């Protein structure tokens, strides 16, 4: 049922991890959620998908995840056409989607548990990930005992436990307060850099999109489409002070310009 899990460093270096050509999605035969998306995602790239509600960013993500199928166009992940969820693509949602009856560690172990019997090695790996996301002392706490930010840290650990080399993040910190969100974004950068995974990050915050990404897909609604792709040249590791610099703000203006152009 699953495609073979490939090495975390991507299928063929230099080649594309995700390849979309004219990808469209219609709901109910009439509502165009996404139209003609053509793009390439290279190994280890961090891509932000930014745009207002209804621009098809979540739709695109869910197609890559294999949760829904494109209506037309071609969409390939690691060279295979998308269809079913696969082990090397993992997804994280805006809400923590943790199971209230499982401890943090048990939640993190869920992806493993669905595939095989959990071993002590799996447990130790999960505990390492829990420590990595900063929940060391809460491995045996239940979700109701954690704050919203901590719950999202736990679901990030669960995402990493899947071993997927393509991470799809659907507004993962969108429901959190500004301060928590900023901190988690920084930690996300650190973690993704450490693991060298390919990442697609959906947001409606332009600053956040640019700050995190190597490339920003600017998406506009009615019909949802990719209106422009902006390359982000800033050095890594990045610091929060980057957001105060002139080049950064020029880039924000450029992205905003794409939205304005589209509105006319």
């Amino acid at each position, binding site marked *: 049922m699953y495609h073979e899990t490939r090495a975390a460093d991507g299928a063929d270096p230099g080649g594309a991890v995700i390849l979309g050509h004219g990808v469209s999605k219609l709901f109910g035969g009439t509502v165009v959620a996404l139209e003609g998306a053509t793009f390439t995602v290279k190994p280890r790239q961090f891509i932000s998908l930014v745009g207002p509600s209804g621009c098809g960013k979540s739709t695109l993500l869910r197609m890559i995840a294999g949760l829904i199928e494109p209506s037309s166009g071609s969409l390939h992940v690691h060279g295979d056409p998308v269809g079913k969820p696969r082990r090397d693509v993992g997804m994280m949602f805006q809400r923590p989607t943790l199971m209230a*009856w499982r401890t943090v560690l048990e939640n993190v172990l869920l992806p493993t548990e669905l595939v095989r019997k959990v071993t002590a090695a799996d447990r130790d790996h999960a505990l390492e990930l829990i420590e990595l996301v900063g929940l060391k002392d809460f491995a045996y706490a239940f979700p109701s005992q*954690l704050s919203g930010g901590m719950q999202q840290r736990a679901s990030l650990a669960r995402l990493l436990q899947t071993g997927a080399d393509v991470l799809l993040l659907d507004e993962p910190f969108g429901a959190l307060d500004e301060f928590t969100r900023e901190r988690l974004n920084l930690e996300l950068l650190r973690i993704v850099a450490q693991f060298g995974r390919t990442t697609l990050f959906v947001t409606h915050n332009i600053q956040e999109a640019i700050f995190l990404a190597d490339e920003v897909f600017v998406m506009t609604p009615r019909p949802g489409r990719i209106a422009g792709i902006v390359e982000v040249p800033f050095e890594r590791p990045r610091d929060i002070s980057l957001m105060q610099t002139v080049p950064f703000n020029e880039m924000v203006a450029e992205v905003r310009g794409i939205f304005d152009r589209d509105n006319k």
Partner: protein
Amino acid sequence: MIARGAPGRKPARWMVLLDPVFLRRLATHVLIFTSFIAVWEWAGQTGRLNDLIMPAPSAIAAAIWRMYVVTGEIYWHFFVTMFEAVSGFVIGGVIGLGLAIGAALSLTFRRYVAPYAVALNVTPGIAVTPIFIAWFGFGWNSKIALAALIVFFPIFVNSLSGLLRVDRDTEELMRSLGASKMQTFFKLMLPNAAPMIFAGFKVAITTALVGAIVAEFASATEGIGIMMQRYAHRLDIAASIGVLISMALMGLLLFTLMEVADRRTVFWLRPERLEQVSRKRRRRLMALK
């Protein structure tokens, strides 16, 4: 940063006995109850109440003493009715939960079976008693059958709505992790529905008792319902009320058992239970090979 459940020793249960607010409330309760009983007793003793219609508390107490201690006749009847109610609950529960699971997993099943369940519910279950007695006889079986019948609906409806109330994102998460239908059911749908299923169980367990007793009223040779009927026909109201109190006791007993089962199963909705379960889970995970 932690919202709830921070470590810290909770005071022991018995410490409440030292709480002045609790003591004052308790004293008020006792006062109201004893004055009510005292006035009632006084009215009985002075002939202001017809003791054929409304016996005094002392007469009821004497009747209870007789059936529990002197003759001990109540125990067998008590057991019979409890057995009927619990058996009916188990049978109706298995069928109700089973059909709810089928309906939750299959839209077709839901479409063609659920309407009958609703039709069954709008039929007054009690009215089926004569038919059940014709089918299952005068013995325990007809009582068990009636209890099962009226227990079915609350369990079916609660379980079904619990099973269908699954968070869409979490369902997508399970799909993105490649979970099979069985895995999604056992690891997500069923535990997610547990609070609702137990809400149904708690309503149903006392309903089962009603079913068993009503069926006994219709026709039976043993059981607490028939005991009550015999006393009432003899106009022994004191003993009838004694039996009524015993019925309340049965209901309380069954409900409490279910409440305990609920607390143990749906622990994640009881903040006070989390720490204990957490320790248990930790031991289990540490023991992994």
